């Protein structure tokens, strides 16, 4: 198929949607499809061969933070030309509710259009105010995808209608091999955590409480923590005599993140809930880290009800300490869990996810003719 993908956010700046678009595009290309991506980017920045620039990104406030988007006559003209010259069988826009290329592409094209909704919106104001402006563009969308239950709920509540759920994938191969960080995992055992330190739902305090229970009996045990947040809050929860055994990396690069997964004997996901899928968990599984995770439904499903990782009762620090201790003492069980995780995570690999997305493409592209420029809006 000839597929045109519209990425609304700056290609030069890393972000969840950009990574999604890149991984999807590369998975589709690997399956033999022709893919062209249009995205905001500096004209002189190096782009992969399948990306076309729509012009420089402009930072605007959106959904409580700053989004780097692309709009205006110049961008609209570039999108229109890209649609006309692309002769796509299907057009796939991302975040058409953002004031950026997705909306412009819906405006400039007609034919089979698929849209993926990524964001969840706490406040409905912006979406509801914008609904009449977006109406005719959004009405052209034939198939809608949401990447999480939360995104789907936002869509249903604020824009009406429904969407099919296709979660984010993980590019398993990217995580398989990496050098551990210098000095890790070490002799005395180590436990890892990755995620926002200051977001209660990520459950870091549960792990810190468990560490306080484990540390006295295991003088070599160390904790490796990566993710944005305030490290003082982390240290405040650890007993003073154990603080030098807790290493907080803070924000890490993509490369160091992968190395962190390979640096620990046990990877812990102590989330208290709210996680619809657990991208961190699938990344850790791809790296083959032995996992211990809270038994929230999403994690339990991803980990095959405990076959591909140990589950402990959500929020129970004593149970976590007990299970983690048993796991640290049993290298054979860790190796078995590691293998099981690598096998189970294949289901969440981008190649599998891209197959579902292609099924959506084929569902909407039933009429001949493909995507054409919409003359009515010229």
């Amino acid at each position, binding site marked *: 198929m000839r597929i045109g993908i519209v990425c609304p956010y700056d290609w030069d700046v890393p972000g969840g949607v950009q990574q999604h678009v890149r991984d999807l595009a590369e998975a589709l290309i690997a399956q033999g499809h022709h893919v062209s991506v249009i995205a905001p980017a500096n004209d002189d920045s190096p782009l992969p061969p399948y990306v076309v620039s729509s012009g420089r990104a402009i930072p605007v406030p959106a959904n409580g933070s700053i989004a780097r988007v692309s709009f205006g006559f110049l961008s609209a003209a570039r999108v229109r030309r890209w649609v006309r010259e692309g002769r796509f069988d299907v057009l796939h826009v991302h975040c058409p509710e953002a004031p950026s290329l997705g909306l412009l592409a819906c405006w400039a094209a007609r034919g089979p259009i698929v849209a993926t909704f990524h964001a969840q919106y706490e406040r409905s104001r912006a979406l509801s105010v914008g609904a009449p402006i977006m109406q005719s563009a959004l009405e052209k969308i034939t198939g809608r995808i949401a990447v999480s239950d939360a995104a789907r709920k936002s869509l249903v509540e604020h824009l009406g209608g429904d969407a*099919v759920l296709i979660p984010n994938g993980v590019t398993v191969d990217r995580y398989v091999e990496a050098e551990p960080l210098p000095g890790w995992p070490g002799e005395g055992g180590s436990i890892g955590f990755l995620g926002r330190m200051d977001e209660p739902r990520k459950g870091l305090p549960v792990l810190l409480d468990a560490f306080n229970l484990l540390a006295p009996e295991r003088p070599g045990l160390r904790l490796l923590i990566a993710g944005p947040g305030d490290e003082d809050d982390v240290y405040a929860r650890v007993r003073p005599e154990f603080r030098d055994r807790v290493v907080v990396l803070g924000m890490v690069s993509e490369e160091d993140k992968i190395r962190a997964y390979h640096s620990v004997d046990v990877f812990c996901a102590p989330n208290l809930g709210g996680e619809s899928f657990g991208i961190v968990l699938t990344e850790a599984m791809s790296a083959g880290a032995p996992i211990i995770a809270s038994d929230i439904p999403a994690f339990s*499903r991803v980990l095959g009800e405990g076959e591909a990782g140990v589950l402990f009762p959500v929020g129970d620090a004593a149970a976590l300490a007990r299970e983690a201790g048993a796991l640290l003492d049993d290298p054979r069980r860790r190796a078995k869990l590691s293998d099981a995780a690598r096998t*189970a995570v294949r289901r969440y690999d981008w190649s599998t996810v891209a197959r579902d997305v292609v099924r959506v493409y084929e569902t909407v592209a039933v009429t001949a003719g493909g995507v054409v420029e919409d003359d009515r809006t010229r």
Partner: protein
Amino acid sequence: MTEILVAIAFLILAAFYLSWRASRLDRLHTRVETARAALDAALVRRSAIALELAASRRLDPATSLLLAAAAHEARTAGPDEREMAESDLSKAMRAAVEQPRFRESLAETAGGADTLNELDESLAKVVYSRRFYNNAVATTRAARRRPLVRALRLAGSAELPAFFDIDDDPPEIPPTGG
């Protein structure tokens, strides 16, 4: 004089507005028809796969009979029984596919892995196309409920599209059976 000009301007604007509303409705009806065609294609494809499986001699005769009967019912059902029959086919396919070791034993037969893939694909496409169709129906029905559209009969003689409500839950895939 001014009043006449204002009245003319008003009439022109009103005409433009109404024509825009009517063409929007027309677009929405086209979208419903396209989505319906996709849904019908997906349902036909699914029953074809069910029949093919039933006739393939790869399954035990009881499972084959179950699938063949349900697929036949779905294909021959009249408009009023269609939703019921398609739901029954979903249930029959779930019952067949969720048998212990169904996937494994089918995958071991010649060409079985491809058949499994086609089966999953046809089931997923029913879910997708039905959701897209019902979305189009909901948008169109909301547009046609507007007072102006009803008073001026802007929708013309087009029939009010109906939702397609069936049970189309696909079979459970065992957690680690990726």
